[in-house]
């Protein structure tokens, strides 16, 4: 009996906490469907008569896409994040595999240098990087966001840790059969790397989708801006339009949450794996 009560209290507490954790997200969704000017009165003091507190409208979303051109920024974000994910998966998986399984002079020293560089904060590189990309003439284009993310130390590291478990005998057998290194990578290694590539893929896409500071720096013009940058700028201009901004937040967050919902096993599993091994 005592045990049942304890189980009830314990699980009740957990679900209560879950509710608290979800409240900000739930509030965002709710406010996004409310008529302009009514979201904040819901939470107003009780003695104040609520104005049009109830109501459901798609007006905020309509405005976002017609007047504020959010569709464009959405497409930009999709394009940039997809490009970063595709390119970096290719480059990181090749390098990670090589660091794990191919012998070449200087390999281990090089890898140690890379690991040490993991502590360098990204911001330390931003100012010179901006000048470099300006020289290349890519500021205000998608490339300014894509280029620096085309390969990452963390991605190389993650693939390498996983690739270490590929048996050498498998690779040697392919070599004995006369397969070239490129073909071995394509036909033998890549299929084996699928799980870690799924993990790294979600990881990379989410990071690119949510990234703010670097896109803010290099996308000053309107045309190539990603969703977070556009949203931050809009939120400065529309502080009073709570419901409109919440609709913008929903549009920005929803794809990330959706991706997480279908690939949560890969994402959470990958983090657990990376941390225990590393």
């Amino acid at each position, binding site marked *: 009996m005592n045990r049942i009560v304890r189980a009830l209290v314990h699980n009740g507490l957990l679900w209560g906490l879950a509710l608290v954790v979800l409240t900000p997200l739930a509030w965002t969704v709710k406010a996004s469907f409310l008529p302009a000017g009514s979201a904040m009165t819901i939470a107003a003091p009780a003695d104040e008569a609520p104005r049009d507190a109830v109501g459901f409208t798609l007006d905020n979303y309509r405005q976002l896409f017609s007047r504020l051109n959010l569709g464009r920024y959405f497409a930009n974000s999709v394009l940039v994040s997809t490009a970063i994910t595709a390119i970096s998966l290719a480059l990181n998986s090749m390098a990670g595999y090589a660091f794990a399984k191919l012998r070449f002079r200087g390999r281990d020293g090089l890898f140690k240098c890379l690991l040490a560089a993991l502590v360098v904060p990204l911001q330390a590189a931003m100012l010179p990087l901006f000048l470099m990309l300006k020289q290349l003439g890519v500021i205000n284009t998608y490339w300014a966001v894509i280029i620096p993310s*085309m390969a990452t130390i963390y991605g190389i590291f993650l693939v390498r840790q996983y690739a270490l478990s590929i048996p050498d005998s498998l690779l040697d057998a392919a070599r004995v059969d006369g397969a070239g290194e490129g073909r071995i990578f394509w036909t033998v290694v890549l299929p084996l790397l699928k799980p870690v590539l799924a993990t790294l893929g979600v990881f990379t896409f989410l990071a690119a989708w949510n990234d703010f500071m670097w896109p803010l720096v290099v996308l000053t013009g309107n045309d190539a801006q990603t969703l977070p940058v556009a949203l931050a700028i809009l939120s400065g201009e529309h502080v009073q339009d709570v419901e409109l901004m919440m609709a913008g937040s929903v549009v920005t967050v929803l794809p990330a949450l959706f991706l997480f919902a279908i690939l949560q096993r890969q994402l959470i599993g990958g983090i657990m794996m990376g941390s225990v091994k590393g």
Partner: protein
Amino acid sequence: MAQTSPQQLAPPRSRAARRGSSRRVLGLAPGWWFTAPALAIVTLFFLVPALASFVLSVTDFDIYALADLRNLRFVGLDNFRRILVGEQSELFWTALGNTCFFVFVGGPLSVAVSLGFALLLEAKLTRYKGALRVVFFAPVVTTLVAVSITWRYLYDVRGGLMNHALESFGIEPVNWLGDPHWAMPAIILMAVWKNFGYNMVILLAGMQSIPDELYEAASLDGAGSWRRFWHVTLPALGPTFAFVGVTTMIGYFQLFAEPYVMTRGGPENSTYSLVLLMYEEGFRWWRLGAASAVAVVLFAITLVAAFGQLALQRRAAA
């Protein structure tokens, strides 16, 4: 394959099979060709710029140099003088103080919350562990800018949900983002909400790798749940804590989007962070030399803090 070729009879470690080291292209081993593209990107667009910021920090690179490089001059350590003791020093030390407050209060708080949630989830009584884990992790994958905008409204002094909740407990409303004393704690609270799930998952992995025998042995010795936690769980999580501590600290030093979106560094500069200072100096006022000095300081502090924490934890483990 129908017939056995002579190659298949060869021992597995034949010369051709020596892990691809023999087939050189243009005199380079395949390993080089596989790593070259990624290494080129990382070197060219991360390592070189990171080092170049040291060079930039001893120049007066500004909007004139941006227009014409001939305007660029070497100024020695003048940028560092300006931010450490000179004209910019007040804002710099304020930003450093705020950032340190965020790191050394917000960081441990967030790890503690992660640990609490991990312990709750890991308890034997817990049902639907997987679903709960997904819920607690959800804020991690949300877009920081978007949730910062949401929290700005949650913190609204009159209509915000936060004060509404306080009021139902009979607590006076707080001017969260408008009061210099409350703005940084408010940002910390949001950051904890946003981030705790990440470390929670890592700590869960650490807990699951603790062998059951350790707990059983402790139970046989008559240890209650509290002592099992203190003498088995915590020590066994040592390496995990080192990892979580260092990564959290490095991440928290980079505070930017929250103040940029929620407060613009205000009120009274109480949420002005180092990275915000770097951004404004560099990309708003185009004083890239001075901004690089801030970046170098940030770099140095991050290094010292990371190694300091690792050393501390190593000593504690010994």
